[in-house]
């Protein structure tokens, strides 16, 4: 599986472990609930740790843990759920999160420009054939009017 990361199409090293699955080796991401429940075990796994956040989650809930998290997945249940955009802004702008922020789930390739402006630096698209177009969409605009993350 390939994704866009830092404006390049790259292979993805991460896998998501559902709440009812066993933790495994390698770079894994889990739900926010799982993170809260299994934090000690997760910190002991061999790979890096990521947390998947949905629109209804509160970013504040993991603010104190961000130093231990290398990936935040912002998961769109539907492309119109704009809470994700504020979550990204809060992670970068308020909590100064420096790790990878990745958009996942049901978002559109036409949203990557705005997402990149609020601090998302990686994109896992539903259709991998959309990757080249999404990559070029990151350059839809060369100017902007307002201060955001980028």
């Amino acid at each position, binding site marked *: 599986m390939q994704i866009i990361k830092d404006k390049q199409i790259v292979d993805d090293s991460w896998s998501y472990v559902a709440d009812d699955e066993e933790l495994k080796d390698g770079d894994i991401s889990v739900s926010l609930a799982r993170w809260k429940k299994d934090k000690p075990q997760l910190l002991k796994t061999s790979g890096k740790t990521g947390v998947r956040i949905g*629109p209804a989650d509160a970013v504040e809930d993991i603010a104190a843990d961000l130093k231990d998290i290398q990936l935040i997945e912002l998961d769109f249940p539907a492309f*119109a759920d*704009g*809470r994700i*955009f*504020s979550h990204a802004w809060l992670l970068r702008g308020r909590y100064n999160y420096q790790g990878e922020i990745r958009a996942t789930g049901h978002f*559109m390739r*036409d*949203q990557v420009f705005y997402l990149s402006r609020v601090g998302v630096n990686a994109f896992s698209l539903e259709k991998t054939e959309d990757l080249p177009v999404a990559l070029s969409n990151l350059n839809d605009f*060369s100017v902007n009017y307002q201060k955001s993350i980028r």
Partner: protein
Amino acid sequence: MYQYNDTDQTLIEQRVAQFRRQTESFLKGEISDDQFRALRLMNGLYIQTHAPMLRIAGPYGLLNSKQIRKLAHIARTYDKNYCHFTTRQNIQFNWPHLERVPDILEELASVQMHAIQTSGNCLRNTSTDHLAGVCIDEIEDPRPYCEIIRQWTTLHPEFAYLPRKFKIAVSGATHDRAATQFHDIGLHLVKNDAGETGFRVLVGGGLGRTPVIGQVIKPYLDKKHLLSYLEAILRIYNLFGRRDNKYKARIKILVKESGLDKFSALVEKEWLLIRDNLELAADRIETIKAQFAPPAYEVDAAQDTSFAQHQLENKAFATWVKYNTADHKVPGYRAAFLSLKAPDSPPGDMTDTQLDAVADLADRYSFSEIRSTHRQNLIFADVKQADLFELWQQLDALKLATPNNGTATDMICCPGLDFCSLANAGTIGVAKEINDALDDLDYLHDIGDVKINMSGCMNGCAHQSVGHIGILGVDKKGVEWYQLTLGGSSENEAAIGERLGPAIAKDQVTKAVTTILDVYIKQRLDEESFLDMVKRVGINPFKEQVYANN
């Protein structure tokens, strides 16, 4: 008037290119209907009953003659020779072809216009007082702040997928002509005790299905904090506004359900964290203000005596001056309304020929500027009194001089069932019938200030709930019925109209309106306006007569 710099121009050109790609992708089947819907709406494009409808932004209602000529050209080339002015100072075309919309947007970009965020669940076009900068009751010209807000809202990356649409209006005068109390955010320029000018901020107003009057969330906000405060409100709304039910998704519902105190506390907390980082620099405000510097008024304009003479000699001209012009802060000048409510034309509509002619007149008489108003008329804001007679004659020839500004035939009316896919009932036909019934100008002027607003559905695009007389079209088992309300107002003493009684059949609406007006004529006190009388006597005297035979 604000002129685009390289950044502004680049941005709208890149937006056209982006939408062209999106349209091509959609036509090739690469993006779904649902996805394209969101993208096209944020470029003003609806799919309507008969054809797409394209809504173009009139930034706070301000247009120049070149832009008006471009609208005429688009009407001729891409549409059926006319366009429609809306209550939020925008312009609609009802018959464009989807494949040609990118070409239309490219044409618009060539004259510094666009259709960005005129629809969709995003930050919409900012609207303001149509007499901004010229009225006699102004605290400060709101247009520079509208432009600052226009820029901030345009392609805002965080707030493009809000729970629902979001509208901001700004008023700089003591009299609110921009319905700011019925906007998601209303901003009033006010003075504080130290004599400095800042903003009173209102939040949670709105029309539509659940009309709500906005509440004061910040009695005084320093100008430098304008954008940080807006951002704080928007972030709280984006995170906590309801997304489970589109009829409960506007900020008014969030404010109502959380309570103003709790909502304010959330906003305040957010704002304190961001405000130092987002200050509006004083020199930035000054730079934008310079773009709205007054035009080169003639110092001796008030010396003219012909204006008074013409009014003495020509009753029709005097009547037009009385109803269709407004006082101007510069002696010897007046603002002149162009009525888009001629008896035989759908309210707010203009033909390509009229648009071209109006552009020429604006060049000659009003520093090449034209404004659109919240009540769907146009204004030349800066006309020398010595020119008014000539201007009136020419407007009259163009059917733009009906002296009905602010009267019962100056109706706000949405396109209704004839054009809109959301509508439940027709409006244009009913408006024409009411117009025909009120064709006696003396009677119309005797009635005076009556605002009739008519919408073809609950969404309330024509603000029926704040009409002095509101008319709402509803569908009952496939038949068009009309619900009347009385006593609404979108001005300083904001009020939501009260239901008169059961809905009325289509062929009885005009009769009901004339009956209401007759009750007013018979029972009013000296100099009492229609709205004042409704406040005094309530709806019963009207109700009794309207439903007398049912």
